[in-house]
């Protein structure tokens, strides 16, 4: 008989050791799992919303039941009410999310005002699609998606959105999408991989294009620079200089500066000096760099300074040149749309510098009055004084145009939904994404910021670019509508 080697260890000790090891192993598995579960439970803010990041901000997706920020309450409650009505109703519905950073810190280029205005505009679009003049089927529920400050928690929020694609929410499109940053671009790519249609509202970086299902209603930076150049030339401005932020990752500044430097100089127009640069990522230096420029400007004497940088850096630039040595010379500064992200307070301070400031905005409520052909009548009326938005959200001036851009983004998505339902019978993210490229001619999106159709790469075709001026009270004043091609397309 073959013998198995005898083991003479005390069985009860062996049992205890084995049981101990099993317990330890179980604990080794259970403790992290349990800790993770407890962590998750503690981090739970609401269904689909969790506490994340160093600032412990609540990020994720809500149908309006959860408040990401107090200042959003009035619009959030309306959205919640409308969503519930749609969900409880008999008509078919799909969901469209509005995603951006709703919990803001000093690191964000957007202000609380601007994101609130965006959400108000988005709600208007939902309302118009479900109940108003554009009433169509299927109805849409508007989900509010917060990616956190600087979109630092985009991954969790995007994953939550992806989950809702197949849940009862039936998510088909995500709109808004925040400013042009690497994180937001990553979020777009992931959503695209999961077949969700996207419409960006204020994203202008030129290089964000050629992504499946993605379009934007804002003109690109390049378009803005071209429109600015066209406007200056119409105003007989012949000399200019470019001040550009060279901070790494600031695509907005680089594309603006490059495009303007490329398009402005011609036979009758010239850049009187090399591009003057500062690096906003070096916090100890950039303010001094801006101060140093004022003497150069006095020396070079350009008629216009094209400022290719973020709005918050623009205000410092304005302070710098306000105290210039050549007070006898007047400077006109023209900047890009990021100026609209400045708060009313910041704009007022900038106005006090007495420097003439123009900027290319994304939209303006007065555009309809002064250039009625450039925008949709029906859409623009909602943004006028005493319009629906004013009645719903009084005492909240929306000169920054953010509400219009958000509205146009959601209305684009809603039109996509409607067209997909009508033409393909099935409303999916992919189907909605395909519809964006059918929006031509009479099917152009009748936006409050202009009539919108899209190129294959997702950019709008010759989108109207409002030239705005900062008035003495720090409010943006509509000057005229420009466009990359010179004049914007007309509705009629």
């Amino acid at each position, binding site marked *: 008989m073959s013998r198995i080697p*005898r083991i003479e*260890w*005390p*069985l009860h000790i062996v049992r205890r050791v084995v049981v101990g090891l099993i317990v330890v192993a179980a604990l080794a598995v259970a403790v992290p799992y349990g800790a993770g579960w407890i962590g998750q439970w503690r981090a739970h803010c609401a269904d689909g919303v969790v506490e994340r990041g160093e600032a412990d901000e609540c990020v994720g997706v809500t149908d309006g039941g959860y408040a990401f920020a107090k200042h959003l309450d009035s619009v959030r409650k309306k959205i919640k009410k409308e969503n519930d009505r749609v969900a409880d109703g008999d008509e078919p519905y799909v969901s469209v999310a509005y995603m951006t950073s709703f919990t803001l810190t000093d690191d964000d280029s957007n202000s609380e005002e601007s994101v609130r205005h965006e959400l108000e505009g988005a709600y208007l679009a939902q309302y118009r699609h479900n109940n108003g003049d554009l009433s169509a089927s299927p109805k849409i529920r508007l989900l509010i998606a917060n990616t956190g400050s600087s979109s630092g928690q985009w991954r969790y929020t995007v994953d939550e959105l992806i989950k809702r694609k197949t849940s009862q929410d039936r998510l088909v499109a995500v709109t808004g999408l925040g400013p042009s940053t690497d994180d937001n671009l990553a979020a777009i790519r992931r959503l695209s991989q999961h077949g969700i249609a996207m419409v960006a509202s204020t994203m202008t970086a030129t290089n964000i294009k050629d992504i499946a299902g993605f379009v934007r209603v804002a003109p690109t930076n390049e378009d803005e620079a071209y429109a600015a150049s066209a406007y200056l030339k119409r105003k007989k401005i012949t000399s200019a200089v470019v001040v550009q932020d060279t901070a790494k990752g600031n695509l907005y500044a680089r594309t603006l500066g490059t495009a303007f430097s490329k398009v402005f100089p011609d036979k009758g127009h010239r850049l009187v000096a090399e591009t003057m640069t500062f690096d906003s990522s070096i916090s100890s230096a950039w303010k001094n760099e801006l101060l140093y420029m004022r003497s150069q400007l006095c020396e070079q004497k350009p008629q216009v300074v094209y400022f290719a940088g973020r709005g918050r850096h623009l205000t410092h630039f304005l302070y710098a040149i306000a105290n210039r040595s050549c007070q006898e010379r007047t400077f006109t500064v023209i900047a890009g749309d990021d100026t609209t992200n400045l708060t009313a307070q910041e704009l007022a301070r900038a106005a006090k510098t007495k420097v003439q400031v123009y900027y290319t905005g994304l939209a303006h409520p007065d555009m309809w009055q002064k250039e009625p052909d450039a925008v949709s009548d029906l859409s623009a009326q909602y943004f006028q004084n005493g319009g629906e938005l004013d009645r719903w959200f009084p005492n909240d001036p929306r000169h920054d145009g953010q509400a219009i851009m958000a509205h146009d983004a959601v209305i684009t998505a809603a039109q996509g939904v409607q067209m997909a339902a009508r033409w393909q019978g099935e409303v999916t993210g992919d189907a909605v994404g395909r519809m964006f490229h059918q929006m031509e001619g009479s099917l152009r999106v009748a936006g409050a910021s202009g009539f919108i159709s899209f190129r294959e790469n997702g950019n709008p075709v010759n989108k109207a670019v409002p030239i705005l001026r900062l008035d003495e009270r720090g409010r943006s004043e509509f000057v005229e509508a420009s466009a990359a091609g010179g004049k914007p397309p007309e509705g009629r």
Partner: protein
Amino acid sequence: MMQPGSGVGLRGRSGIISLVQACLKEPPTAERPVVMLLGPRGSGASEAHSMLMEHFGPEHPFAYVNLGGSQSLLPRYALALLARQLERKLPRYGRSHFPLLTLGLLASDQLLRMNSLAEGRRAIQRQLDAFQERSEERYGDYLAAFFEVASGAVGAPDGFSTMALALLQDALRRGRRRLPGRVFGGKYSASAAWYGSHPLTRSQDQWEALVELNLWRHEGDEQQERLDRVLFSAFLEDLRRNTARAFMPRSYLLLLDNSHTEYGRRFLDHLIRARHDDAVVTGTDCDPLTVVASSNRWLPRWGPATGDAWPWRLRGPDRASLQDWHEHRPTRDSDDTWWYPLRLRDLNLDEVRIRIDLELGGNPELAPFTRLTPFVHRLTGGLPRAVRQVLDVLQQSTAPAEDGPGQDRWLRTLPDQTLRVGEDTRTLVDAALGHLLRGFDPVARGALAECAAARDLSVGTRVLSSGETLFGEIRARWLLSPGTITPTLHPWLRRLLLWELGRRPGDWDTVHELLAEHFRTERQPVQAMYHRLAMGCIDEVTDHLLLRFPAVPTPQWISEFSLITSAPNRLPSHGGPLELLAGLAPLRPDQAVDAASAIRGLVAARWVWSDPLADPAMRLNDLIADGFTQLSQLRRNDIVALFNEAERYRHWRHPQTTESEG
């Protein structure tokens, strides 16, 4: 009060403990002895079993069977009882199984009916199942059924500690409750195949082999013997298979009490034979049993009780060890090679002292009795049960606890004091003799009492015509005093028998007269004087010793004096030593001291002194010492021995053993 046996049993038995420990630690296939604890009744064998159970029971699988119980126990029943206890689950080890033994017992349990072999296989399985189920329904499991039948044999005898009893009950209760049948898969085939291949079964077919077992059971003694051999073989094989597994013990401890009985001897015969067949004849591994058996008498299979025909000489337990066994065991060709006979010795003075201290020292009322240790040791010779009985009498009685004449007078009557054991109340002498001489009829006991008058029992039996049988029986029961060349009865037994004989004054005198006459004829005057003194002839003895005093060297005279004055007495059963002495040799102040008066006084004092019941506290020591001093003054030369003897008594030190004095 301390529980009987708890801790006490270890005293004087440590050699046995270390021997068993060494056996249990040996590898499973190592050869181990069958340790035989030999000694008269009361020599502490049952206590030793209790002690081993206490010591090893909590950690090792053990089984205990009392083969001397009131109920006869067939070997297969004993096997079932042992297997059931060995199945006890211990924390340290996995559970042991006995599938071969169980199947063998099951197959031989009831008559199996089979018309043809082909039909028989299924029938056997069916019938085995049915037996098993019936047993299970009635008793819980199959081996438990044997427990029900033979439970009387498990009952522990007197001397077991409560802890040992608890362990034993635990072993029985915690035997496996599940059916062993499940272990062999309910289909019996694996175990049945072993029976098919066993050399004792004729048929190679496993099912036919089982039927064969069944037939043996119902076919007379010879075949039943064969069946028992196969079952023992199965038992040992089960043990071997158990120890071959991981997490199992190296050895199993088997405690067989009172194995000198008929069924005990049969059990041991089968066990030794099965082991010898396996380990020597067929050359398989030795079984892993550590066997400790006890016997109150010489076993017939060892030849005559003289021990001349047996290769073994009894070994002392103090130096018992595996090495000692290996050095002294006979060649492996003989099955005597497996024995290891250990003669349980009496307790020495120190061991008795420790026992008494442990038992009485903790009780303030009884603590004074601890001073009686030398008395108890002198009286009992250190026989463990005798010590126990004397202590019990002291605890149960109203004996004066304080040392003094009152206590002396009470102790004088100690044999007639009552001893309660359970509901049985008898005098100490009756209880002790009843236990020591169990199986002796009153006539034989009376005859033995007469023979006990002689120091040499062989002379007593010859002179008094009691025959060789009585002497042989006493020798076979180890009731002779160990360590003496002269075959003398154990001092405790002899004293009790003489106490009984003392109640028959006529017989006392007759017996001693006959013996004195015998020794006179044999020209052994010292022995003759011994018996004359027993008859109370002090003057005659004095005259004899007076004549010898100048005639022989002093040391020889002292030796003769000591032997003569160690004679038994039939003095009154009341009064302390001084009162007894006064009755024998009244002091006469007016008398001048001469050799005759000095020797007379010495004879009387030494005679009283030599009986522990007459002088329990040895109060006559100084008197005897003075007597020797007086004698030394009456002699001109060769007086050093007398001085020494005087010193010896004056500064008396109790000897460790009783073989040398009194």
